């Protein structure tokens, strides 16, 4: 019965075409999405880069009084968010202290903001690993973390002498990267968002 074949072949070929087309679209979309649009999915651009640093008044961790971050305008400021429970913070601590000490003559301020942690634990962390030339303050109610769009710890922000946030390191800041970034800032070179590793979240 040749007419059966005649009658059926086009429609089954049509089905194959539709199937092939759907499969092709699925594969193309798969490839497109697997490239993650050329971006590291863990990296979220900080919309704060290029924006003025928030004026925050935060209580000192180990003494009376508050630190007004707005008062630091005119100096390059490195703002580091940390906590005692964060292992990345432990890793980067020595490098931060070395950099802070080295750049005191260059009007570079280093501020450590204890985020999502109890002051007592933060102080014990500093007793163990040292304080250096840092100004340590406490993030009451996570307000500073919110203003800086902190996604995890540690995160380090660089603020230029005009009070503009010019760079951010997510994850532990390796001493060399930290120092090179501060040097570039001192010398007036542009920097941006740098990711060094995973940031940590507290459950």
């Amino acid at each position, binding site marked *: 019965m040749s007419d059966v074949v*005649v009658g059926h072949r086009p429609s089954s070929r049509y089905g194959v075409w539709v199937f092939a087309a759907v499969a092709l679209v699925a594969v193309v979309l798969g490839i497109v999405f697997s490239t993650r649009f050329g971006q590291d999915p863990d*990296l979220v651009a900080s919309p704060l880069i290029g924006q003025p640093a928030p004026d925050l008044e935060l209580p000192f961790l180990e003494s009376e009084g508050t630190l007004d971050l707005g008062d630091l305008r005119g100096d390059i400021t490195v703002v580091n968010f940390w906590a005692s429970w964060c292992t990345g913070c432990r890793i980067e601590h020595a490098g931060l202290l070395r950099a802070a000490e080295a750049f005191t003559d*260059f009007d570079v301020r280093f501020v450590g903001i204890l985020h999502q942690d109890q002051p007592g634990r933060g102080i014990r962390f500093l007793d163990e690993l040292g304080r250096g030339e840092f100004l340590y303050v406490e993030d009451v109610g996570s307000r500073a973390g919110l203003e800086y769009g902190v996604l995890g710890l540690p995160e380090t922000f660089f603020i230029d002498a005009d009070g*503009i946030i010019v760079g951010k390191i997510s994850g532990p800041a390796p001493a060399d990267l930290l120092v*090179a970034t501060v040097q570039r800032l001192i010398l007036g070179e*542009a920097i941006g968002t740098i990711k*060094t590793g995973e940031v940590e979240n507290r459950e």
Partner: protein
Amino acid sequence: MTPTARRMLSFGVMAAFLAVIVIALVPGDGPQTVDDRVREIASNIKCPACNGASIADAQSSVARDLLGVIRDQVEAGLSDADIYDYFVARYSEAALLSPPGRGWGLWLWVLPLAALALGVAVVLGRRRGGPGTAPSSAHAVSEALDAVTRDLADLDDQLRVGELDESTVRRLRATYEAEAAALEARLGDADAPSGESAGATTARSNRRVVAGAAVLGVAMIAVGLSVGLAIRDREPGGPITGDVVQSAAAAGVVSLEDVTNEEMEAVVAQFPDNVPMRRALARRYFFAGSLDRAFDHYMAVLDRERDAEALANVGWITYLGSDEVEIALSLVEQSLAVEPENPMAYWFLANIRLDGLDDPAGAIAPLERFLAYPDVPDELRREAESLLSRAEQAA
């Protein structure tokens, strides 16, 4: 069930389905109490450190703090949009759990609806041309004919057992015979040796396939182009580890006037592998005439990276301080290979060729290049002009 009833039923099901979707998408009355609004907003914002859970759902202390912030803002009378904007300004649009209705987010909203519309169109299209109204393929026609023939044969039995009365049987027989005649006529067409009908069907199917493939191709090109553009918009380049997203801000420069060379030396000694400060210090020494110190620091820079400034200036120091003219020339040329837009390298190159290698013709091009830079200091410009006329006379 008659075809009409079946069609109406399927339309009804489809309409009900669409109605459910539309009702689900249309927002109801806004939440009334502060608690409701806080919860509503918090459930649309991703908690920044909670594995993708919303602020409303997450159990962490950050989520509790942020919930407090949202409550403060609701109580302060901010609109929902203001509060979402506040979070987006700090965490980027990634903070929103519903994609925004613009840019790429718009596609996420439009594509499922477009796919649904396409599916409905395809189903309706098939139904209209499908076997429900008239069998289209020869095979289906012959099957339908068999069925009608069977029904005709059954009529006699049904009359005999008294299932149907005679007038009904007569009416049905007329209907069935008409149907059978129509189907036979169609089957005759399909069986015709010329195969006109079958040929037409094949041609129509082929046209459909071509049209489908064309639509698909255009759609894929559109997707490919838009993806390509989206990727190209993110410009890499920038510091150290890549992954640079933006860096438009010009850094507020700190005055280094108050910083002594000794302080810079201390930093360089402490972080010997970091180039920027060392290069800045070497430049200081270079322009202050402390060429030995500049040389040492520039060499230390070159141990770590192929820096254009260091190559050019080491070349110049080599030319001034030794008889190694060829080495000096090579270093300056390497510098220009790394960075062709360094005016001083052209100045060094011209001097080395003119006086070091006695090659006035070779000095003309770099001198002209040097003089083309608008910000050459006047003193150097005058010197370069006199050098150029000397080179042109000698050449």
